[in-house]
């Protein structure tokens, strides 16, 4: 159904190529939603005066539609078709319908048509002049009538976004000094491809309106575009943060790529430089590969759905030939501005890349910033050619590698044989060598033994000779010494003898003792005490008679 809507709108963009039959068919579609949205589209299209009556006729038929929803839309559409007089069908419907809303809608439409007519005739001007008194609803109708001519584009910053009953979006558009309230049916944002968010700078094509119910002034947004790269960048940062938090770019989720893929899925633009670059490098590097090429639009309306669809298609592809699945998918395109890369930066494509069961190589010919699709891919290449280089090893260098490996094995093996031969001869050499060394050693030992023995004998006889010599010398020395000492001893002995107390006693002196004590003073004795006197010879016992000090 969506596809059908798009088809219709596409034709309307170019009024010259209008095909009334197609419109009639869409208006007769068995789905009420299709009929309604066709009517909506009719209201938004600018018709030239030749087409207007035809379109009006078609819309008038729809007033008799079986669906009230379609009837209401037909009434709204009629109003935009610049009717100068109220058609009878409208009057009939107002009296016959049971739908209250529809009736109100018709009444207000009739009033507007009337006002429009009056304005055309200059009645409105007249009314102001003569202090005409409006009813409230008439005044609102009157103002809206004036305002509806004023379709303008406004640039401003989005804030305070609110969704009403999941089908109307309200937001404020502001700049430094002012603010206006805007609204639009939620579905429209899919057509515009703009996800509203706070702080986003946009250009809105708006039609001013006053709500009859609330009296509020608001701008009905007819078209919304992002304003410049700054705005896109912000939106990109927001998605990046969101997907990063979900782990879509996590290194540990990256899968290993097959070493030499046989079946490659390629998603890129048809007839694009990216396509020819990739295939060219592929052909130059290696044969025997099969490429399943999915041509898609890589930017603009519909590119997201095509890329996502292609990823899904290739994931389920069961190609003939070796294996039953592709080995890898390559998603690539040339470089471009941030706007060009929008689909590669979109949440949908990034998620599709992430959830692919095949490993994906993504490459946007753009060195600096990575697109989100590249961040989510298992491998990122800088350009389409680089993707082919990373994916497919070069045939020649692989052959060289193989050759050098085989060569190395052969050399190593030869070396092994050489080692074995060497080791046998080494063993013999070593044995001979060690025998020789041993003989030399013993020879040396014998020689040195002989030498030591000789020197020992020599030393022994020397020692004997010197001993005899010493012995004679020693004897004569001792005799001299002894004789000298004997004389000296006798002299000393005489001297010693002359010092003895007995020599003194011999000269006539006596020693007096009381008990064992030698008496040196008379006061040591008492009268009547017994004392012993020792002359040179014998002993005299005596008694003290008198003491004189």
């Amino acid at each position: 159904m969506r596809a059908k809507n798009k088809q219709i709108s596409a034709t309307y963009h170019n009024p010259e190529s209008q095909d009334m039959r197609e419109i009639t068919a869409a208006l007769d579609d068995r789905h009420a939603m299709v009929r309604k949205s066709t009517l909506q589209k009719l209201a938004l299209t600018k018709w030239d005066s030749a087409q207007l009556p035809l379109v009006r006729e078609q819309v008038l038929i729809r007033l008799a539609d079986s669906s009230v929803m379609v009837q209401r839309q037909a009434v709204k559409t009629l109003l935009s078709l610049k009717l100068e007089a109220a058609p009878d069908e409208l009057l009939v419907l107002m009296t016959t319908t049971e739908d209250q809303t529809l009736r109100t809608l018709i009444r207000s439409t009739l009033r507007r048509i009337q006002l429009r007519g009056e304005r055309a005739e200059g009645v409105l001007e007249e009314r102001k002049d003569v202090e005409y008194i409006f009813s409230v609803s008439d005044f609102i109708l009157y103002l809206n009538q004036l305002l509806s001519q004023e379709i303008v584009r406004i640039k401003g910053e989005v804030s305070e976004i609110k969704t009403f009953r999941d089908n109307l979006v309200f937001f404020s558009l502001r700049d430094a000094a002012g603010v206006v309230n805007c609204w639009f049916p939620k579905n429209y944002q899919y057509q515009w491809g703009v996800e509203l968010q706070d702080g986003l700078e946009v250009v809105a094509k708006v039609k001013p309106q006053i709500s009859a119910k609330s009296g509020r002034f608001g701008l009905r947004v007819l078209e919304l575009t992002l304003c410049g790269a700054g705005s896109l960048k912000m939106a990109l940062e927001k998605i990046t943060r969101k997907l990063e938090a979900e782990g879509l770019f996590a290194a540990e989720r990256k899968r290993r790529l097959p070493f030499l893929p046989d079946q490659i899925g390629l998603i890129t633009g048809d007839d694009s430089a990216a396509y020819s670059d990739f295939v060219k490098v592929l052909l130059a590097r290696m044969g025997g590969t099969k490429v399943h090429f999915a041509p898609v639009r890589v930017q603009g309306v519909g590119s997201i759905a095509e890329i996502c669809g292609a990823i899904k298609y290739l994931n389920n592809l069961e190609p003939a030939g070796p294996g039953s699945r592709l080995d890898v998918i390559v998603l690539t395109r040339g470089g471009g501005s941030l706007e060009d890369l929008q689909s590669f930066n979109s949440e949908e494509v990034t998620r599709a890349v992430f959830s692919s069961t095949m490993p994906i190589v993504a490459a946007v010919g753009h060195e600096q910033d990575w697109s989100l699709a590249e961040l989510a891919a298992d491998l990122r290449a800088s350009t389409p050619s680089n993707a082919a280089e990373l994916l497919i090893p070069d045939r020649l260098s692989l052959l060289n590698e193989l050759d050098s490996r085989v060569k190395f094995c052969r050399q190593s093996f030869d070396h092994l044989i050489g080692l074995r031969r060497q080791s046998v001869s080494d063993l013999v050499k070593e044995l001979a060598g060690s025998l020789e060394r041993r003989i030399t050693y013993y020879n040396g030992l014998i020689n040195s033994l002989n030498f030591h023995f000789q020197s020992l004998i020599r030393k022994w006889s020397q020692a004997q000779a010197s001993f005899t010599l010493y012995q004679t010398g020693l004897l004569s020395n001792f005799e001299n010494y002894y004789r000298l000492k004997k004389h000296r001893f006798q002299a000393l002995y005489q001297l010693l003898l002359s010092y003895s107390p007995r020599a003194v006693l011999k000269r006539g002196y006596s020693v007096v003792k009381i008990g064992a004590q030698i008496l040196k003073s008379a006061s040591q004795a008492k009268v009547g005490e017994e004392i012993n006197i020792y002359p040179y010879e014998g002993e005299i016992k005596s008694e003290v008679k008198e003491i004189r000090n």
Partner: protein
Amino acid sequence: MSDSTKQSSTNINFEASFKKLEAIVREFERGELDLEVGLERFKEALKLAETCKKRLDEVETKVVKIKEQFADFYQK
């Protein structure tokens, strides 16, 4: 899991052979092989290199353009 096992057979042969060859080279590099095992490894290396060369000698590369409305596969 089933996806990785469904990889094409020649692909696996090539990659496995190439890896095995590398392992043999490393074994030789360590220089711990004796003559008998060395001979076995050498014979195997020759066989593996042959398998790899067979894949590398393939010349033809085919590109098949898929004619589908890819958008139709999205959101299904």
